[in-house]
């Protein structure tokens, strides 16, 4: 039983397993309509990356034979629940995992229907890149606008438009260019700053998914797989420090005398031993004496790290406190402007009350003003509604019972988000993106 981190481990590693030690963890979200072949695309990506298990390969072979198809039915790998298999659609968010020599990918697949906007936002929330599928025969649909708007709202680092079913339009370059122009108009119409790429594929036949297409020699760009490998994890080291205290660790054990550590996650930025930190909301200040992760002490911790921080002075700090650098203290908002994505069956009105959860803080809030509803498809004029309903995207003003200390989502994603919880049902009813002033 090794309680201490074993020092002999490095010697045990052999070259043949080296690849396991340098992979980057990258999260991708996919979204698409019912029949634009999303399940087949993911299946193809896994199959051509040699990432299917033997059982999955056998299932594909069995289902393909049952259907009597010439091409492999790769869609059966991802359609997880019985209800989905019965209806032939993807209802919920599903996660899939595969790795190549350099990357470990987590694909979060969410359904494309308008009524599942909430799942799409959830699915894409952790992603660096989203893949939006477009049926080459149909071009952009209302849902394509919605998917792109959500990628833009989430400020993803990149959007890849996969124009699928190119085999059904004779691999025609002109058709592809028509769609590329449509996409460009959509991006310009939203004034969106999200970098994007368009790639022509056929997931059924395997063109440009992992293997470059022989049927579309006119396309000189990278395959979908090549584009995914250009993705890197989102680590926001250069932003202001926001440390969320989840748990206070006290200990007299393991040789420690009166150990006290503030355990939590670096939401953004960097913290180093010797830094003076300000505690919010008390505004008291003290110096970092130790940054600990298990038996190891560190000089610094960066965005994403789960650590325990000890301070020179005894200050009353409990769950929900935020540690920051004094010269980068966020404003203590009494109200916030935010874009809400509504996720509950029950509607909301001005005056509705909820619990807001932001990092480890939880406090009551009230909907003060509905500013305007957003139509991501830009088809309907925005109207000022009094009611917020399931899957609505709405700009609102919310009054807080405690100071907010949010950053604008646009400048610091991880300190610019919250969820709303209905205190009666305990359901998570909305996700909010804080807007700058």
């Amino acid at each position: 039983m090794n309680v201490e981190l074993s020092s002999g481990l490095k010697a045990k590693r052999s070259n043949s397993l080296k690849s396991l030690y340098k992979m980057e963890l990258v999260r991708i979200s996919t979204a698409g309509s019912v029949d634009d072949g999303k399940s087949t695309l993911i299946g193809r990506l896994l199959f051509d990356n040699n990432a299917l298990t033997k059982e999955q390969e056998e299932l594909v072979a069995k289902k393909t034979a049952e259907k009597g198809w010439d091409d492999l039915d790769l869609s059966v790998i991802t359609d997880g629940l019985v209800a989905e298999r019965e209806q032939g659609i993807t209802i919920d968010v599903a996660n899939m995992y595969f790795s190549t020599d350099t990357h470990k990918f987590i694909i979060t697949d969410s359904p494309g229907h308008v009524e599942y906007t909430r799942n799409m936002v959830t699915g894409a929330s952790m992603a660096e890149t989203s893949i939006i599928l477009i049926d080459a025969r149909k071009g952009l649909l209302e849902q394509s606008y919605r998917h792109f708007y959500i990628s833009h709202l989430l400020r993803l680092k990149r959007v890849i438009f996969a124009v699928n079913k190119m085999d059904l339009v004779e691999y025609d370059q002109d058709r592809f260019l028509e769609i590329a122009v449509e996409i460009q108009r959509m991006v310009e119409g939203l004034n969106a700053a999200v970098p994007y790429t368009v790639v022509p594929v056929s997931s059924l036949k395997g063109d440009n998914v992992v293997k470059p297409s022989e049927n579309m020699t006119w396309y000189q760009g990278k395959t979908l797989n090549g584009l995914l490998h250009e993705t890197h994890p989102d680590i926001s080291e250069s932003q202001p420090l926001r440390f969320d205290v989840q748990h206070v660790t006290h200990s007299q054990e393991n040789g420690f005398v009166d150990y006290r550590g503030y355990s939590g996650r670096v939401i953004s930025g960097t913290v180093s031993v010797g830094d003076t930190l300000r505690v919010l909301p008390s505004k008291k200040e003290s110096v970092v004496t130790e940054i600990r992760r298990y038996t190891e002490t560190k000089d610094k911790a960066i965005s994403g790290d789960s650590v325990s921080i000890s301070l020179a002075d005894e200050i009353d700090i409990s769950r929900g406190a935020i540690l920051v650098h004094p010269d980068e203290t966020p404003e203590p908002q009494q109200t916030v402007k935010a874009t809400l994505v509504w996720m509950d069956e029950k509607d909301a009105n001005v005056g509705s009350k909820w619990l807001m959860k932001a990092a480890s803080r939880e406090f009551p809030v009230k909907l003060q003003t509905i500013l305007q509803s957003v139509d991501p498809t830009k088809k309907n004029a925005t109207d000022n509604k009094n009611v917020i309903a399931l899957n609505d995207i709405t700009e609102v003003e919310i009054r807080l019972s405690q100071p907010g200390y949010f950053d604008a989502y646009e400048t610091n994603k991880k300190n610019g988000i919250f969820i709303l919880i209905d205190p009666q049902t305990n359901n998570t009813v909305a996700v909010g993106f804080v807007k700058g002033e």
Partner: protein
Amino acid sequence: MKNQHLYDLENESIYILREVASQFKKPVLLFSGGKDSIVMAHLARKAFYPSRIPFPFMHVDTGHNFPETIEFRDAFMKELGADLIVRYVQDSIDQNKVQEETGKYASRNSLQTVTLLDAIEEHGFDACLGGARRDEEKSRAKERIFSVRDDFGQWDYKRQRPEPFQLLNGRIQFGENVRAFPISNWTEEDIWSYILQEGLELPSVYFAHNRKLIKRDGQYLAHSEFVNIVDSDEIEERTVRFRTVGDMTCTAAFLSDAATVEDVLKENVASKHSERGARIDDKRSESALEDRKKGGYF
């Protein structure tokens, strides 16, 4: 060189474990003695060090475990200094709460659910930490990190709470409880790589050893008094290992010479069998696991 993706996964799991400890009054960690629960216990140790892990462990013992697993479990708990609660499926059988299955494929695997739910009620646990991973099976792929169960332990995927940005909402009504899955995003390969990196010990059945086996339907089962042997079964002795440590009645052995963690990793990369392939009870039907989960199974 730091293994970046394992470090990221560890960050995420520690975050989840700390949320569970803070959001619930009486959490428990479900510990089977298998590799996933050993990794989870190690992560819990890291999350709260230098203090003790702030919740007890519980094992639902079917009575059909590998003796090696039980031996390991007890040694592990002693080393860790955590409290272990053991509840026995045999007790539920004796109390006539469940009926022992009969016949060639008789297994106590699905009977565990009743014992588990009774133990949750008895102790008033409001959160159960489980080592389930989303890569194990298709219906697991849709499980949230916090999964709310009603009084009867039932899982309703339509009632799942959205978890944008991993903001975890653990608020529950009286009588409800939450199943929490800190290693949701780990794959089997991640688990083995992590065991190698951290130098964790495992029960010996995970590594190649000589064993008396029952060959049935082209698969090998460990020879034990718990399996009802029929005429068509062949008894053989082979060098094998197990990829999971479920019940002896329903866990298939693999012919293997992999004697170390590193050997196992190499062999897993080379072969491509998913580990649930070795769980015979999942093969009963295409939706076997989903059906059991709706009924409160882990």
